[in-house]
């Protein structure tokens, strides 16, 4: 039973990474623009995030050290501080976008003014994180986020050509008409890779493992949870790409709002499908908002050596608690200025790829260090080989991300 409950850490981590508002819009948009041709990037990213979450979880279970503790220790103060600032900027921007996403979902249901709904979302999130324990947060938002599986059913009933879907998993670049379209394809490939391998997933996952009190005996459990969570998240991302390709591509519509993704569910599953999809989006966005605000607090506390954790009473981890509260408040204030949440998250996704090498390098080095991890728990040759391969890929993506963002004008082509 304990193992089933622990699964929700993996599910919540993956939900907050794979189906938050930015990825939702990005995936549906990628399907609308390129059909199934980007599915191999989702698969590539999924293996990468599984490998690094597993390593970060293993280090947390064996050594009791979360990710930012390792970054400070192995990357040093200066490189570590750059990573901290960038990571927490990404956390803040993503949290901002999620609060905007929740307000958009509520607006879809109620028609009330957007800014007031954003304020309501802030109140809801503050109350939930203050009152609920980490374990209940995992269960509630992990379980109810599973309503997103509605999109799986929707993708199935949209009757895609399964042969073409399967062909999309073969790495390759389609024949496009102009060089600007190739650049756009490259931009989407980098952005999807980044949105699948979002750095805060590893921060949150490793810290969550420590919140749940994992020890070296949980190493196998960690492996299962990292795999199940990432695979579930990526299947949902694939379903969103399929929905985009089937619903919007034939009409050459470029969806830019989360509500448009819900359209795919309502077309095939009717009123109840729409309600389940909207409910799933609400819990997925709220889960991602909580994941990013807590990640911000975890990172800062672990970098500076503050007591941290939801398992401690707020009074005894006071700076940690104030940090997540301030993150929520700042995020809500930004959204209330009227910025478009989807463009906020698109920028944050592209910038987050830039910090991926700084995040993954220390994790890879520690997880592979036999003196630190011991013979039994250090990376084997497979994990090391895959880890270094992905470090190469994310470094390449990090170098390409900002130039591609500029030349494609943020994916507008």
């Amino acid at each position, binding site marked *: 039973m304990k193992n089933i409950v622990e699964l929700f850490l993996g599910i919540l981590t993956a939900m907050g990474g794979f189906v938050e508002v930015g990825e939702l819009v990005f995936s549906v948009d990628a399907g609308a623009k390129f059909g199934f041709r980007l599915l191999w990037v989702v698969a590539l990213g999924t293996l990468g995030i599984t490998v690094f979450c597993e390593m970060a979880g293993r280090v947390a279970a064996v050594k009791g050290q979360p990710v930012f503790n390792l970054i400070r220790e192995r990357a040093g103060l200066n490189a570590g501080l750059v990573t901290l600032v960038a990571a927490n900027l990404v956390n803040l921007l993503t949290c901002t976008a999620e609060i905007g996403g929740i307000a958009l979902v509520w607006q879809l249901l109620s028609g009330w003014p957007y800014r007031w709904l954003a304020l309501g979302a802030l109140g809801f999130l503050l109350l939930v994180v203050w009152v609920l324990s980490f374990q209940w947060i995992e269960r509630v938002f992990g379980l109810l986020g599973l309503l997103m599986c509605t999109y799986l059913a929707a993708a199935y009933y949209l009757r895609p050509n399964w042969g073409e879907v399967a062909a999309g998993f073969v790495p390759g670049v389609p024949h496009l008409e102009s060089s600007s379209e190739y650049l756009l394809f490259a931009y989407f490939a980098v952005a999807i890779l980044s949105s699948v391998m979002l750095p805060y997933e590893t921060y949150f996952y490793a810290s969550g493992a420590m919140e749940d009190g994992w020890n070296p005996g949980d190493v196998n459990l960690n492996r299962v949870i990292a795999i199940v969570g990432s695979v579930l998240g990526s299947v949902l991302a694939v379903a969103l790409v399929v929905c985009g390709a089937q619903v919007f591509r034939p009409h050459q519509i470029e969806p830019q709002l989360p509500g448009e993704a819900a359209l795919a569910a309502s077309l095939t599953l009717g009123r109840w499908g729409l309600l389940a999809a909207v409910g799933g989006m609400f819990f997925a966005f709220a889960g991602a908002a909580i994941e990013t605000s807590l990640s911000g607090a975890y990172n800062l506390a672990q970098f500076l*050596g503050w007591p941290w954790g939801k398992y*401690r009473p707020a*009074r*005894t981890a006071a700076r940690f608690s104030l940090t997540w509260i301030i993150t929520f408040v700042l995020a809500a204030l930004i959204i209330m200025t009227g910025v478009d949440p989807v463009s906020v998250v698109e920028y944050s996704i592209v910038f987050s790829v830039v910090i991926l090498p700084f995040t993954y390098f220390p994790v890879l080095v520690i997880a592979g260090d036999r003196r630190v991890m011991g013979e039994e728990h250090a990376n084997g040759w497979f994990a090391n080989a895959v880890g270094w391969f992905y470090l190469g890929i994310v470094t390449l993506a990090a170098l390409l991300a900002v130039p591609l963002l500029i030349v494609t004008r943020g994916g507008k082509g």
Partner: protein
Amino acid sequence: MKDEFLDLVRQVLDHEVVDSNNLPCGMVDDLEVSGGPGGELRVTALLVGAGAWTRRLPSGFEGLAAFIFGRQQTRVPWSEVETVTERVKLRSRAEELGLGGADRKAAKILEKVPGSG
């Protein structure tokens, strides 16, 4: 400590400091050494707090970081160090060494909210 010597930069600097109750109470932000060329060089204290780490940043960033995080620092004598593993464990409690003061101040704000523990 099993090893014959301690690599101060890799095994001590930038590692987490915990007190005798295993409560995190900062990082080893800098080290104080005494002695000089020709004589014996000894580590005399750990320096913990923003005042210690902001000084290690490239010039230009130091002032900005100090503006945000302050310049407070606490000196913990090396004799207070009990063990050095992934964490540097101290022999006394955080309050006794003057560590964790900022957290206790922040706790005063949160204490007023119901459910703060």
